[in-house]
Protein backbone atom coordinates (compact mmCIF):
# COMPACT_ATOMS: atom_id res chain seq x y z
CA UNK A 1 0.00 0.00 0.00
CA UNK A 2 1.56 3.24 -1.08
CA UNK A 3 1.29 6.24 1.17
CA UNK A 4 -0.28 9.22 -0.51
CA UNK A 5 1.75 12.36 0.02
CA UNK A 6 -0.65 15.20 -0.49
CA UNK A 7 -3.17 14.96 -3.31
CA UNK A 8 -4.13 11.60 -4.76
CA UNK A 9 -2.99 10.96 -8.29
CA UNK A 10 -5.42 8.14 -9.07
CA UNK A 11 -8.06 9.89 -11.11
CA UNK A 12 -10.75 7.44 -10.09
CA UNK A 13 -10.41 8.27 -6.43
CA UNK A 14 -11.67 11.55 -5.05
CA UNK A 15 -9.69 13.04 -2.18
CA UNK A 16 -10.90 11.70 1.13
CA UNK A 17 -10.42 12.88 4.69
CA UNK A 18 -6.91 11.37 4.94
CA UNK A 19 -5.75 13.66 2.14
CA UNK A 20 -6.63 16.76 4.15
CA UNK A 21 -4.71 16.07 7.35
CA UNK A 22 -1.04 16.50 8.09
CA UNK A 23 0.96 15.70 11.22
CA UNK A 24 1.07 19.35 12.29
CA UNK A 25 -2.73 19.52 12.15
CA UNK A 26 -3.32 16.65 14.58
CA UNK A 27 -3.30 16.88 18.39
CA UNK A 28 -3.69 13.53 20.14
CA UNK A 29 -4.61 13.13 23.80
CA UNK A 30 -5.19 16.84 24.30
CA UNK A 31 -5.97 18.13 27.79
CA UNK A 32 -8.61 20.75 27.09
CA UNK A 33 -10.86 22.65 29.46
CA UNK A 34 -13.57 23.59 27.01
CA UNK A 35 -14.66 23.69 23.38
CA UNK A 36 -13.22 27.14 22.83
CA UNK A 37 -9.75 25.97 23.83
CA UNK A 38 -9.87 23.10 21.36
CA UNK A 39 -11.14 25.32 18.57
CA UNK A 40 -8.43 27.86 19.22
CA UNK A 41 -5.66 25.26 19.36
CA UNK A 42 -6.70 23.59 16.10
CA UNK A 43 -7.31 26.92 14.39
CA UNK A 44 -3.83 28.07 15.38
CA UNK A 45 -2.34 24.94 13.82
CA UNK A 46 -4.27 25.62 10.61
CA UNK A 47 -3.14 29.25 10.59
CA UNK A 48 0.52 28.46 11.20
CA UNK A 49 0.41 25.88 8.41
CA UNK A 50 -1.02 28.49 6.04
CA UNK A 51 -4.48 27.05 5.46
CA UNK A 52 -6.58 29.79 7.08
CA UNK A 53 -6.51 33.53 7.67
CA UNK A 54 -6.03 35.03 11.12
CA UNK A 55 -9.77 35.75 11.23
CA UNK A 56 -10.57 32.03 11.11
CA UNK A 57 -10.31 31.14 14.81
CA UNK A 58 -12.76 33.80 15.99
CA UNK A 59 -15.07 33.11 13.04
CA UNK A 60 -15.23 29.42 13.96
CA UNK A 61 -16.04 30.23 17.57
CA UNK A 62 -18.69 32.79 16.61
CA UNK A 63 -20.31 30.39 14.18
CA UNK A 64 -20.36 27.65 16.81
CA UNK A 65 -22.52 29.88 19.02
CA UNK A 66 -25.32 30.22 16.48
CA UNK A 67 -24.82 27.05 14.43
CA UNK A 68 -23.46 24.41 16.78
CA UNK A 69 -21.72 21.37 15.32
CA UNK A 70 -21.97 18.74 18.05
CA UNK A 71 -22.85 15.31 16.63
CA UNK A 72 -23.94 12.57 19.05
CA UNK A 73 -22.86 9.24 17.61
CA UNK A 74 -24.06 5.71 18.20
CA UNK A 75 -21.14 4.70 20.42
CA UNK A 76 -19.75 6.39 23.50
CA UNK A 77 -17.42 8.73 21.59
CA UNK A 78 -18.98 11.87 20.12
CA UNK A 79 -17.62 14.43 17.73
CA UNK A 80 -17.91 18.05 16.74
CA UNK A 81 -17.07 19.54 13.34
CA UNK A 82 -16.55 23.27 13.88
CA UNK A 83 -15.88 25.39 10.81
CA UNK A 84 -16.22 28.94 9.54
CA UNK A 85 -17.47 30.63 6.39
CA UNK A 86 -15.27 30.04 3.38
CA UNK A 87 -13.90 33.58 3.23
CA UNK A 88 -11.63 32.76 6.19
CA UNK A 89 -10.02 29.78 4.46
CA UNK A 90 -7.06 29.84 2.07
CA UNK A 91 -6.79 26.13 1.22
CA UNK A 92 -8.77 23.10 2.44
CA UNK A 93 -7.56 21.06 5.39
CA UNK A 94 -8.82 19.18 8.43
CA UNK A 95 -7.38 19.64 11.92
CA UNK A 96 -8.13 16.84 14.37
CA UNK A 97 -7.93 16.66 18.14
CA UNK A 98 -8.62 13.71 20.38
CA UNK A 99 -9.32 14.73 23.96
CA UNK A 100 -8.41 13.11 27.26
CA UNK A 101 -11.72 14.36 28.63
CA UNK A 102 -14.71 15.33 26.50
CA UNK A 103 -15.68 18.98 26.18
CA UNK A 104 -19.17 20.37 25.79
CA UNK A 105 -20.52 21.31 22.40
CA UNK A 106 -24.17 21.86 21.53
CA UNK A 107 -26.14 19.41 19.40
CA UNK A 108 -26.39 20.61 15.80
CA UNK A 109 -30.05 19.63 15.44
CA UNK A 110 -31.06 20.48 19.01
CA UNK A 111 -28.90 23.27 20.39
CA UNK A 112 -30.44 23.03 23.86
CA UNK A 113 -28.75 19.66 24.22
CA UNK A 114 -25.12 19.11 25.17
CA UNK A 115 -22.81 16.82 23.24
CA UNK A 116 -19.72 15.69 25.12
CA UNK A 117 -17.23 15.51 22.28
CA UNK A 118 -14.04 13.51 22.59
CA UNK A 119 -13.00 14.12 19.00
CA UNK A 120 -13.05 17.55 17.39
CA UNK A 121 -12.43 18.06 13.70
CA UNK A 122 -12.02 21.69 12.68
CA UNK A 123 -12.82 21.84 8.99
CA UNK A 124 -11.17 24.46 6.83
CA UNK A 125 -13.11 24.23 3.59
CA UNK A 126 -12.83 27.02 1.04
CA UNK A 127 -15.63 26.24 -1.40
CA UNK A 128 -19.19 26.02 -0.17
CA UNK A 129 -20.11 22.81 -1.95
CA UNK A 130 -16.77 21.20 -2.65
CA UNK A 131 -15.35 18.14 -0.92
CA UNK A 132 -18.70 16.36 -0.92
CA UNK A 133 -16.90 13.02 -1.29
CA UNK A 134 -14.65 13.87 1.65
CA UNK A 135 -17.64 14.80 3.81
CA UNK A 136 -19.47 11.65 2.77
CA UNK A 137 -16.47 9.61 3.87
CA UNK A 138 -16.41 11.42 7.19
CA UNK A 139 -20.12 10.69 7.64
CA UNK A 140 -19.40 7.00 6.92
CA UNK A 141 -16.68 7.08 9.53
CA UNK A 142 -19.01 8.67 12.09
CA UNK A 143 -21.55 5.92 11.43
CA UNK A 144 -19.02 3.20 12.28
CA UNK A 145 -18.53 3.09 16.07
CA UNK A 146 -15.49 0.84 15.76
CA UNK A 147 -13.68 3.24 13.44
CA UNK A 148 -14.58 6.16 15.71
CA UNK A 149 -13.10 4.26 18.63
CA UNK A 150 -9.94 3.55 16.66
CA UNK A 151 -9.62 7.21 15.77
CA UNK A 152 -10.03 8.18 19.42
CA UNK A 153 -7.33 5.69 20.46
CA UNK A 154 -4.87 6.79 17.76
CA UNK A 155 -1.38 7.28 19.17
CA UNK A 156 0.39 8.45 16.04
CA UNK A 157 -0.39 10.44 12.94
CA UNK A 158 -0.14 7.21 10.94
CA UNK A 159 -2.86 5.68 13.12
CA UNK A 160 -5.07 8.66 12.31
CA UNK A 161 -4.39 8.43 8.60
CA UNK A 162 -5.19 4.73 8.53
CA UNK A 163 -8.54 5.24 10.22
CA UNK A 164 -9.43 8.14 7.96
CA UNK A 165 -8.50 6.11 4.87
CA UNK A 166 -10.81 3.33 6.01
CA UNK A 167 -12.70 1.75 3.15
CA UNK A 168 -11.05 3.99 0.57
CA UNK A 169 -7.86 1.97 0.87
CA UNK A 170 -7.89 -0.48 -2.05
Amino acid at each position, binding site marked *: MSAHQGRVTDHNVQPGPADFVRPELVILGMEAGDAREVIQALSRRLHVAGFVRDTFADAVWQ*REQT*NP*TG*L*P*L*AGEIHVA*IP*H*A*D*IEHVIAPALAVATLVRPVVFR*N*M*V*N*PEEEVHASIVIV*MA*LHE*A*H*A*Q*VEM*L*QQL*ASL*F*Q*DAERVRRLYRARTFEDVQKVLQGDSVR
Partner: protein
Amino acid sequence: MSGAKRILVACGTAIATSTVVAKAIEEGLAARGIQVVTRQCKAAEVPGLAKEFDLIVTTTPVPQNLGVPVIQTLAFLTGVGKEEVLDQIAELLSKE
Protein backbone atom coordinates in the same frame (compact mmCIF):
# COMPACT_ATOMS: atom_id res chain seq x y z
CA MET B 1 -49.72 8.70 -10.50
CA SER B 2 -48.09 11.98 -9.58
CA GLY B 3 -44.46 12.75 -10.24
CA ALA B 4 -41.53 12.25 -7.90
CA LYS B 5 -41.95 13.74 -4.47
CA ARG B 6 -39.91 16.82 -3.68
CA ILE B 7 -37.81 17.05 -0.52
CA LEU B 8 -36.13 20.24 0.66
CA VAL B 9 -32.89 19.46 2.50
CA ALA B 10 -31.70 22.20 4.81
CA CYS B 11 -28.61 22.60 6.94
CA GLY B 12 -27.06 25.31 9.07
CA THR B 13 -23.49 24.57 8.11
CA ALA B 14 -21.36 26.54 5.70
CA ILE B 15 -20.18 23.33 4.06
CA ALA B 16 -21.73 20.63 1.90
CA THR B 17 -23.57 18.88 4.71
CA SER B 18 -26.90 19.20 2.92
CA THR B 19 -25.41 17.48 -0.13
CA VAL B 20 -24.33 14.53 1.99
CA VAL B 21 -27.78 14.37 3.56
CA ALA B 22 -29.62 14.78 0.25
CA LYS B 23 -27.66 11.95 -1.35
CA ALA B 24 -28.23 9.68 1.63
CA ILE B 25 -31.96 10.39 1.50
CA GLU B 26 -32.13 9.72 -2.23
CA GLU B 27 -30.23 6.45 -1.87
CA GLY B 28 -32.20 5.33 1.17
CA LEU B 29 -35.53 6.00 -0.50
CA ALA B 30 -34.44 4.46 -3.81
CA ALA B 31 -33.72 1.30 -1.85
CA ARG B 32 -37.36 1.45 -0.76
CA GLY B 33 -38.51 1.91 -4.34
CA ILE B 34 -39.26 5.61 -3.90
CA GLN B 35 -37.95 8.21 -6.31
CA VAL B 36 -37.57 11.73 -5.00
CA VAL B 37 -36.18 15.04 -6.15
CA THR B 38 -34.16 16.91 -3.56
CA ARG B 39 -33.07 20.51 -3.33
CA GLN B 40 -30.64 21.92 -0.82
CA CYS B 41 -30.81 25.20 1.01
CA LYS B 42 -29.70 27.00 4.11
CA ALA B 43 -31.97 27.06 7.15
CA ALA B 44 -32.83 30.73 6.62
CA GLU B 45 -34.16 29.97 3.14
CA VAL B 46 -36.61 27.29 4.30
CA PRO B 47 -39.67 29.45 5.02
CA GLY B 48 -39.49 31.03 1.56
CA LEU B 49 -39.14 27.71 -0.28
CA ALA B 50 -41.26 25.40 1.88
CA LYS B 51 -44.51 25.42 -0.09
CA GLU B 52 -42.79 24.09 -3.22
CA PHE B 53 -41.98 20.83 -1.43
CA ASP B 54 -43.68 17.77 0.03
CA LEU B 55 -41.28 17.42 2.94
CA ILE B 56 -38.46 19.25 4.63
CA VAL B 57 -35.53 17.38 6.18
CA THR B 58 -33.11 19.49 8.15
CA THR B 59 -30.02 19.08 10.34
CA THR B 60 -30.72 22.35 12.14
CA PRO B 61 -33.84 23.80 13.79
CA VAL B 62 -36.32 25.47 11.43
CA PRO B 63 -39.89 26.74 11.98
CA GLN B 64 -42.43 23.97 12.18
CA ASN B 65 -45.55 25.87 11.13
CA LEU B 66 -44.81 25.96 7.42
CA GLY B 67 -47.69 23.82 6.14
CA VAL B 68 -45.16 21.19 5.10
CA PRO B 69 -43.97 18.33 7.33
CA VAL B 70 -40.54 18.94 8.85
CA ILE B 71 -38.16 16.24 10.03
CA GLN B 72 -35.21 17.53 12.08
CA THR B 73 -32.57 14.82 12.25
CA LEU B 74 -28.85 14.04 12.21
CA ALA B 75 -29.56 10.45 11.15
CA PHE B 76 -28.07 10.92 7.70
CA LEU B 77 -24.80 12.18 9.16
CA THR B 78 -24.44 9.99 12.23
CA GLY B 79 -26.41 6.92 11.21
CA VAL B 80 -28.32 7.02 14.50
CA GLY B 81 -31.95 6.16 13.72
CA LYS B 82 -31.37 6.30 9.97
CA GLU B 83 -33.58 3.37 9.01
CA GLU B 84 -36.39 4.58 11.24
CA VAL B 85 -36.26 8.06 9.73
CA LEU B 86 -36.28 6.61 6.21
CA ASP B 87 -39.35 4.55 7.11
CA GLN B 88 -40.96 7.68 8.52
CA ILE B 89 -40.21 9.62 5.35
CA ALA B 90 -41.54 6.82 3.15
CA GLU B 91 -44.76 6.76 5.12
CA LEU B 92 -45.15 10.54 5.06
CA LEU B 93 -44.62 10.68 1.31
CA SER B 94 -47.04 7.85 0.63
CA LYS B 95 -49.84 9.76 2.33
CA GLU B 96 -49.68 12.83 0.11
